[in-house]
């Protein structure tokens, strides 16, 4: 039976780069995937592209490509990535330039375009899933609308001979499904194979999160050598069989526990994991350790895909102002609470227009709120944190200012004041009839 090995070289835009180099050098892989596009990243990248028509792709694209292209070219490893963000064609041109500058002019680079569905969404005035309202009602606050594309266009690019495939918004598991479809010729209506392939992609998409990252809990779940965490490899057979492993000698661990945690990560109903290509079913998955850092994952299934694609809509939501200041030593908790009350009163007295406010003490109740944290002991130091939502930047700035004035007007011995004010680009979702998205493969320099 034919088997391919797919390496996962990044779990988010800012991820470590050496583990990807290690995968390319020592992982005996045929495909290297970089997943670098968060929920909101496309909207931010779209803003960057509006300022610079050649921009709007992942800021680490150049560093990553320079690090892995020579090795991948020498070993014939194909690269699939969503580092195109809001501008896959510019990212592909840049990558082709880098390849030439490295003496690798024969590498074929393809961009997948067509995830930008802003016009189609506007024309349809689609309803927003998270709150009452439609696309049109967002008015000039609307920044972007990008459909989660499936694996089809990326697989098509690989079949056409691409060595490097750069997409914008696509479903994360689809980045991994594309190599499987390319290598094994899986039919796009073989729902069970696509479902099991989605299990593989879902497990691999967050890179280090399945090799021991986001996992360690000393004394309960110890993980060796996290500073040298190795990134995962999926060994996929043409029948969909799957083993998760990593480069021998790298840090971290692949165990049944790490695989179970990652299988359920960001999953709602495990029997219905909606993807552009399939509705995957994780409910019957079995996970077993078959060797050191080798875990077999079987039983993923699938059902017919839906007639719609999820679209991520970026919009300017509001502004957030924030201020922080610290207290320590005897009475720190009482002084921190006094500081919160002073700022609460100041924001009222000075009529700061905020639609939502949070008053909390870092070290006490900032992460889980006062009820969950009620039984915590008294800490040696606390950090006051006040944040608020406003309609404009001017009001947001006033929130941090009121925290900063605690230096000379607040409780004793407050130190390390900090403030910020920023606009908030948020994302919401709509469902677009799938035929309205028209993805295309474009080879650059061809």
């Amino acid at each position, binding site marked *: 039976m034919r088997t391919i090995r797919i390496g996962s070289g990044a779990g988010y835009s800012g991820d470590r780069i050496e583990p990807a180099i290690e995968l390319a050098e020592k992982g005996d892989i045929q495909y290297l995937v970089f997943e670098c596009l968060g929920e909101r990243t496309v909207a931010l990248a779209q803003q960057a592209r509006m300022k610079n028509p050649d921009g709007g792709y992942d800021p680490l694209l150049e560093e990553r490509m320079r690090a892995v292209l020579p090795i991948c070219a020498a070993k014939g490893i194909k690269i699939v990535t969503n580092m195109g963000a809001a501008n896959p064609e510019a990212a592909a041109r840049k990558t082709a330039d880098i390849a030439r500058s490295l003496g690798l002019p024969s590498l074929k680079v393809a961009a997948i375009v067509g995830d930008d569905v802003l016009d189609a969404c506007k024309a349809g005035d689609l309803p927003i899933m998270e709150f009452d309202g439609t696309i049109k009602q967002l008015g000039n606050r609307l920044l972007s609308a990008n459909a989660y594309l499936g694996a089809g266009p990326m697989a098509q690019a690989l079949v056409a001979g691409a060595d490097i495939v750069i997409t914008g918004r696509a479903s994360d598991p689809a980045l991994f499904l594309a190599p499987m479809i390319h290598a094994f010729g899986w039919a796009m209506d073989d729902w069970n194979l696509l479902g099991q392939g989605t299990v593989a992609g879902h497990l691999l998409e967050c890179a280090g999160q399945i090799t021991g990252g986001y996992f360690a809990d000393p004394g309960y779940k110890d993980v060796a050598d996290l500073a040298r965490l190795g990134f995962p490899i999926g060994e996929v057979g043409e029948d969909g069989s799957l083993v998760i492993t990593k480069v021998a000698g790298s840090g971290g661990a692949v165990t049944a526990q790490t695989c179970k945690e990652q*299988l*359920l990560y*960001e999953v709602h109903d495990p029997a219905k994991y909606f993807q552009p290509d399939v509705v995957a079913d994780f*409910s019957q*998955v079995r996970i077993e350790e078959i060797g050191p850092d080798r875990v077999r994952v079987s039983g993923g299934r699938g059902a017919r895909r839906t007639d719609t694609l999820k679209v991520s809509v970026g919009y300017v*939501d509001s502004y957030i102002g924030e201020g922080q200041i610290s207290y320590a030593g005897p009475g720190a908790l009482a002084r921190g609470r006094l500081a919160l009350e002073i700022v609460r009163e100041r924001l009222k007295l000075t009529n700061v227009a905020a639609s939502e406010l949070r008053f909390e003490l870092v070290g006490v109740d900032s992460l889980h709120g006062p009820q969950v944290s009620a039984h915590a002991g008294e800490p040696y130091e606390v950090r006051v944190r006040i944040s608020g939502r406003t309609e404009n930047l001017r009001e947001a700035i006033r929130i941090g200012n009121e925290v900063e004035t605690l230096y000379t007007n607040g409780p004793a011995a407050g130190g390390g004041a900090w403030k910020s004010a920023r606009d*908030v*680009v948020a*994302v919401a979702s709509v469902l677009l009839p799938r035929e309205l998205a028209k993805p295309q493969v474009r080879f650059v320099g061809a």
Partner: protein
Amino acid sequence: MKLREIAHSRTGDKGNISNISVIAYDAKHYPLLLEQVTAARVKSHFAGVVQGEVVRYELPNLSALNFVMDQALGGGVTRSLALDAHGKSLSSALLDLDISTAPDGK
């Protein structure tokens, strides 16, 4: 004993929805999870954090439960005022749940 003694957990986020897995280290403890880590108990444990419904999914093959908590992330990861906008730290709070090992489970 605390849930932490028999189970591990990871939090994920999508929009304003948080999901938390609870996975038994040993399959023999899965019945304890089924019996005592209920959706109602999880909702009450997260009073003040989770504003919406909590739904529990069961995965017997993995000796695991998956809790899906609606309106749990301060309006959504991309617009929340919270320090931990993703709610990544919520799994640790859930592992603080008390589990009874008395024969009748009470």
